[in-house]
């Protein structure tokens, strides 16, 4: 690469071309003060703190907007420059309230630091103070209008990076105020405007007066919410979390976080956290000691195994817990209990994607976040990354900012469809026929010849021109194309088959792919062998000898039940005991009634969790588990990155990490794991799963997947008794029991609501805020109405994950025959006004 030569203060440097003067200075370690410049934002040139002299140019120039050119001679220190910068600072200070004493930004404030640097600042202005005060219009961010230095970093970060455009300069002039629109509603609570503010004008309201930096300890961890796996910096005071921030431009998130990562930590210190094991005695929970409880669990399990054999015991591992705990969990089930009935809620998504991957011979390139940022085209099928995986969403926005194009096929109206350059509104449940049509166009595979394009087009609801354009989208520029797929595909009938076709398509064209994963360790739990038919590293059961040798026990030969098969078996009396680690199927699994009956039919249910969830309330034994902040281990993100994190706060007395519970229980059952700590556990995993994360495609591959019949129907069909189609959506502000215990997320959005078309609302005579009852064949829920002009008549949209109204209880649990994943994207309902 060519370089340019520039001179700073008579010293010659070489640097890369294409930088501004301030960028070159930063790279070379030359100091230039600034308020408005920030590398990740477009230059503004507003604060004039960065003034420098360019030799040969009469007036001072702003270093942040001046391109550095070969041969340029720049002066950064002189009497003139000092005076000019000081004058700018004087101007800022003339209106500043100087309330550093109780400003949460103090000691981390650029205005303080620069004032300290310039020290002898005059105060010649005698403006009347602008009593603009502080506004609390945003439920999570305090905006102190008086401290603002008008650098507009908040406006730019909100528009350019977050894409929310929620904050803008209002009443521009002498009293410019950085405000949201009255009534708000556009902020996505990423909190990025807090981090970039050079002063204490945007502050975290969950933190207010939480402590000075020197009173806090800070440590990096991994966000426990979604599959992005963002790096979070936990701030602790007196061993309690007081704030979460992104690391300084570290991790996959590069200095961004979403609302969950930043404001969702409240569950860690929620008073409802379990701190003592509970044993059900005569129908009631009583607190017990750990020793007693684990002995009780061991005895009950041993008795059941003795009477009915190990095949009546199953386990649900956790998409929330660490790789290490999941590894131990399946080892416990397989060798201590002797059962392959192991699964997790990854069955609802990633397990189906994995089934598709395992059934594909061709090896398509898996994308990284970086690939998405640098892509030219992204095609999203049946996913809403802006809600499920917000930081992946930001990578897509960054791609668009660089001129890239986002196309999406989705029956719903979502944040991602709104962001897209083109939205193809397919019919509900039409992801699979769409992929079949794309595969027919792109693969020329004779086995697809029984499908007719016109039939497929009719089922997708798109015109054949649209389909042709979509097919053509994948033909060009494939090396810079990323295909993103999510639950719209994985939760469809023949979803795994469709994934397999999509991967073949990607491999054939040379495009790369990624799956959106709602939960933080969906991928890790599967890769650690929390699957009924796969061992750690996705090894097939035929490789079991290697594991038996290492574990010193026997692994059953035949695959076990998947999640819903376990529940079905429980209902039929074929499964007597279930051990659930960190999952809440009663809320997170479709068909609540079915799940409840199944759990109710068990002889013995153990639930290990942070909270007494609805599932835990049905248990015979509840074991209080540690949160991510209180344990160490690793999570595997949606790219397959295995990210380790340390334990940063001590566990409460009575709470134990998942892995420790499993080790101790194994000892009580007389087959104790010889493990000292997480490091030795990690070493064991690494020895058994070489190159954890990079899967050995050919060795683990399964047989190709069967295709649906040409007559197959996918959509919700017709039913005059249930005239509306309810489409399930995802919400940034909730994805399970932790989020429902996080005060910050509850502030961001209090309750779930159902989106209803304006015209439908008029017919139903209901309006915004009214309560309605949604009734399906499987259940009913009560929920508030929100009107929407974008969604088509006859459809409703409602988010999953809110504890106040759970649309999963409206769903059936029909399973896909390949992946055993329930189809859970839509259901027919009727609406009753209340």
């Amino acid at each position, binding site marked *: 690469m060519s370089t340019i030569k520039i001179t700073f203060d008579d010293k010659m440097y070489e640097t890369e071309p294409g930088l501004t003067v301030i960028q070159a200075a930063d790279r070379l370690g030359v100091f230039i003060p600034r308020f408005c410049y920030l590398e990740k934002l477009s230059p503004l040139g507003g604060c004039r703190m960065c003034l420098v002299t360019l030799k040969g140019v009469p007036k001072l120039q702003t270093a942040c907007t001046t391109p550095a050119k070969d041969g340029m001679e720049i002066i950064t220190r002189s009497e003139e420059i000092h005076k000019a910068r000081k004058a700018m600072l004087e101007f800022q200070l003339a209106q500043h309230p100087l309330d550093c004493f109780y400003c949460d930004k103090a000691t981390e404030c650029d205005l303080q630091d620069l004032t300290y640097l310039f020290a002898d600042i005059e105060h010649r202005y005698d403006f009347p103070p602008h009593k603009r005060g502080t506004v609390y219009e945003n439920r999570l961010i305090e905006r102190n209008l008086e401290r603002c230095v008008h650098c507009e970093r908040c406006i730019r970060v909100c528009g350019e990076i977050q894409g929310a455009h929620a904050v803008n300069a*209002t009443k521009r002039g002498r009293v410019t105020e950085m405000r*949201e*629109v*009255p*009534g708000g509603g556009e902020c996505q609570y990423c909190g990025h405007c807090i981090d970039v503010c050079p002063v204490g004008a945007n502050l975290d309201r969950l933190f207010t007066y939480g402590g000075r930096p020197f009173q806090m300890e800070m440590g990096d961890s991994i966000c426990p919410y979604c599959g992005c796996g963002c790096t979070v910096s936990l701030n602790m005071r007196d061993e309690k979390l007081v704030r979460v921030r992104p690391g300084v431009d570290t991790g996959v998130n590069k200095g961004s976080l979403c609302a969950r990562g930043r404001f969702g930590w409240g569950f860690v210190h929620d008073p409802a956290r379990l701190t003592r094991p509970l044993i059900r005695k005569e129908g009631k929970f009583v607190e017990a000691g750990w020793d007693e409880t684990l002995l009780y669990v061991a005895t009950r399990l041993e008795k059941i195994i003795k009477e009915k054999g190990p095949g009546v015991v199953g386990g649900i591992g956790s998409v929330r817990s660490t790789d290490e705990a999941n590894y131990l969990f399946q080892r416990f089930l397989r060798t201590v209990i002797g059962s392959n009935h192991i699964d997790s809620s990854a069955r609802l998504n990633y397990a189906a994607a994995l089934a598709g991957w395992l059934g594909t011979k061709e090896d398509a390139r898996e994308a990284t976040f970086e690939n998405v940022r640098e892509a030219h085209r992204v095609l999203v099928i049946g996913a809403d990354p802006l809600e499920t995986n917000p930081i992946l969403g930001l990578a897509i926005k960054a791609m668009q900012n660089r001129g890239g194009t986002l196309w999406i096929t989705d029956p719903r109206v979502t944040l991602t469809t709104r962001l897209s350059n083109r939205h193809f509104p397919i019919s509900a449940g039409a992801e699979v026929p769409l992929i079949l049509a794309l595969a027919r166009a792109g693969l020329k595979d004779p086995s697809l010849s029984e499908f007719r394009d016109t039939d497929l087009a009719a089922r997708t609801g798109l015109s054949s021109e649209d389909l042709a354009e979509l097919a053509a989208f994948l033909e060009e520029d494939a090396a810079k194309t990323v295909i993103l797929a999510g639950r719209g595909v994985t939760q469809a009938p023949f979803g795994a088959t469709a994934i397999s076709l999509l991967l073949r398509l990607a491999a054939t064209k040379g495009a790369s792919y990624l799956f959106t994963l709602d939960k933080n360790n969906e991928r890790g739990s599967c890769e650690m062998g929390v699957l009924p038919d796969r061992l750690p590293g996705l090894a097939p059961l035929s490789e079991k000898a290697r594991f038996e040798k290492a574990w010193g026990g026997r692994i059953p030969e035949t695959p076990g039940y998947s999640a819903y098969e376990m529940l079905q078996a429980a209902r039929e009396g074929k499964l007597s005991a279930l051990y659930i680690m960190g999952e809440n199927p009663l809320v997170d699994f479709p068909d609540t009634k079915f799940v409840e009956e199944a759990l109710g039919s068990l002889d013995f249910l153990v639930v290990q969790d942070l909270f007494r969830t609805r599932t835990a309330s049905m248990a015979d034994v509840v074991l209080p588990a540690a949160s991510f902040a209180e344990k160490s281990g690793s999570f595997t993100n949606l790219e397959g990155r295995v990210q380790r994190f340390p334990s940063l706060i001590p566990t409460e007395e009575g709470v134990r990490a998942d892995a420790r519970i499993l080790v101790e229980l194994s000892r009580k059952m007389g087959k104790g794991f010889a493990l000292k700590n997480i490091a030795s556990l990690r070493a064991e995993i690494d020895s058994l799963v070489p190159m954890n994360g990079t899967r050995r495609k050919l060795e683990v591959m399964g047989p190709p997947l069967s295709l649906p019949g040409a007559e197959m129907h996918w959509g919700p069909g017709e039913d005059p008794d249930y005239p509306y189609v309810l489409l399930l959506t995802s919400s940034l502000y909730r994805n399970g029991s932790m989020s429902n215990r996080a005060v910050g997320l509850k502030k961001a959005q209090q309750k779930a609501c159902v989106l209803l078309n*304006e015209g439908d609302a008029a017919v139903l005579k209901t309006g*915004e805020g009214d309560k309605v009852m949604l009734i399906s064949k499987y259940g009913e829920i009560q929920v508030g109405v*929100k*009107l929407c002009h974008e969604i088509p008549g006859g459809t409703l949209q409602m988010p999953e994950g809110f504890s106040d109204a759970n649309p999963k209880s409206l769903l059936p649990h029909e399973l896909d025959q390949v992946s055993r994943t329930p189809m859970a994207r839509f259901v027919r309902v009727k609406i009753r006004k209340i």
Partner: protein
Amino acid sequence: MQGTMTAKFSEEMLKRIEEILKRYATKRAAVLPVLYLAQKEFGCINDTALAAVSRALKISRADVYGLATFYSMFHEEPLGRNVIFLCDNLACTLLGAESLRDHLEKKLDIRMGETTADGRFTLKNAECLGACGQAPVMLVNDDFYEGLTEARIDEVLEKYK
């Protein structure tokens, strides 16, 4: 926010917006003329107007709000039936705008920025109206009046009911 998903322009205004959009390369560029229509339709730039503009032009409400609060001729509160803009910049001030302001305030029994109880007039100050040669000047709705005196003002205001 309540109702922001449903706020919209009337069919007639939407047609006029279509026409306006033809003149610009991007929707964002049309925000000022569209805000002007919104003020006509909704009486002022209130939440509904902001939401309707945002929906019509696909830009955020905060961005519309930032613009609307910069230009003094967009109002967040509903105005009287007639709006008086009295210039208070240099030339007009030198030629007596201050005493005209006092006169108007007294006559209408309101302060600058306020609306009469019967809703007949709103009194606003204006930045230079670009007619310094004829100072002092005022604007009543879309009509321009120059070389003002107290008597002339009394006479002019009679025309506006």
